[in-house]
């Protein structure tokens, strides 16, 4: 145990171990207050309910409406948590401490993103049944598949969102700038996620759903890699 600590001081923990440390720290902070989680869940449920009144129920059936509602709510609720991700590091210049630690910059990014992923998925775990309940979805046949889409969509969302959270927190317009930068990047997440969900609920063949899932997977691979590689360049010595 002691030798481990000594090693860390010299070379730092490995990429994954470092990321786990950062993620555990962030989740512990969030678990103790649950402030962001509660507000994101309440926001998501309110959005789901309000969307219901935005359409004429005789013109658009609930099943056609639900995928759009689900994924639009998902992006906006995600933004709420993302802003906090680096917001908590501003207090007492905690970010400087994190940067000075022997944890690789890529690990910091991946850890932050992992914590955000847990956060977004926890919100989804309540929002998806919420949509199913309020919109009378036949989720019994596709619950697992929708959960899979949610995981793929959440990975892409937190990859881009975590990077922009780190960026915008240092600017003058922080809360306003994050959605402005991040939302265009959520478009190639929302379209495939909503389309795949709609196809699933309509009972379309699996091949049609898979085409959209491949697009989501490609987005995840490109942007998780891209953002993790670009994150260290945010800093002067990067």
């Amino acid at each position, binding site marked *: 145990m002691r030798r481990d600590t000594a090693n860390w001081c010299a070379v730092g923990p490995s990429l994954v171990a470092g990321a786990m440390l950062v993620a555990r720290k962030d989740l512990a902070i969030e678990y103790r207050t649950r402030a962001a989680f509660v507000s994101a869940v309440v926001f998501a449920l309110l959005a789901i309910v309000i969307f219901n009144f935005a359409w004429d129920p005789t013109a658009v059936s609930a099943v056609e409406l639900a995928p759009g509602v689900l994924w639009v709510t998902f992006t906006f609720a995600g933004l709420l948590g993302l802003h906090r991700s680096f917001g908590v590091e501003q207090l007492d210049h905690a970010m400087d401490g994190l940067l000075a630690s022997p944890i690789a910059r890529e690990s910091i990014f991946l850890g932050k993103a992992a914590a955000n992923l847990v956060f977004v998925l926890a919100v989804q775990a309540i929002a998806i049944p919420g949509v199913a309940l309020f919109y009378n979805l036949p989720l019994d046949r596709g619950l697992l598949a929708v959960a899979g889409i949610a995981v793929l969509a959440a990975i892409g969302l937190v990859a881009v969102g975590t*990077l922009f959270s780190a960026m915008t927190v240092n*600017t003058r317009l922080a809360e306003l700038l994050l959605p402005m*930068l991040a939302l*265009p990047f959520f478009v*190639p997440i929302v379209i495939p996620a909503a389309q795949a969900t709609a196809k699933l609920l309509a009972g379309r063949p699996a091949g049609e759903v898979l085409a959209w899932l491949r697009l989501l997977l490609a987005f995840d691979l*490109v942007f998780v890699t891209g953002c993790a590689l670009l994150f260290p360049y945010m800093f002067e010595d990067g």
Partner: protein
Amino acid sequence: MTANIQSSPVAMPAPGRAVDWIAILAAVGVIGVFVRAMFFTPLELRQGAAQKILYVHAPAAWVAFLAFFLVALTGALYLWLRDERLDRFAASSAEVGLLFTTVVLITGPIWAKPIWGTWWTWDARLTSTLFLWFIYLGYLVLRGAIDDRRMRARYAAILGILGAMLIPFIHLSVYLFRTLHPLPVLASPDAISGLASGDPARRSMPPEMLTTLLLSIAAFTLLYVAFVRVRYRLAAEQDASDAHGAA
């Protein structure tokens, strides 16, 4: 009295500023191309005069995407070399690119209304261009929201690179719906093989129109260079005056 005259900021020509020949050439080129497009290029059979907007729309779209590609490229080079001239160029290119993207988004609907019967449709090209515009805007707002010059350059470079990665994804995801936009006139395989074979029947466009379009693309590219040069000079002078003010 003498001191008064010296401190007066009025009518002091900047020392050693030569005539900007590239800007003049670009302006003459654009005017010339428009004259050619209006009076010396035949009318399209089915679309009539509405088709003339192609000579503004397509070259502007070319410049918009070229400018954005250069923003991403110089951003990546900046992260590598940390030369502030690269950042200045990226900022200039983004601003000029926003201008040309706006031109694309205005001329498109003007043409689409009489031809398609609708101002806007969620076609892949239209949507990608719209999001290109949003990213340009976000890029410039981000730059405006950061005071530290080096931090601004790094963040902007990262956003520029990510934006270039995003556009193909938006295009692809919207393309998986149906697409309504006319196919590319110049770059389609059929048009290229038609040009190469020299057979007029296989060309997608009469040679007079094609010449006008190519000239227009050249003129617009020159206009882009001229604008970026002006904007770059301004940025360099701003940086110099900031440095002077800080010292």
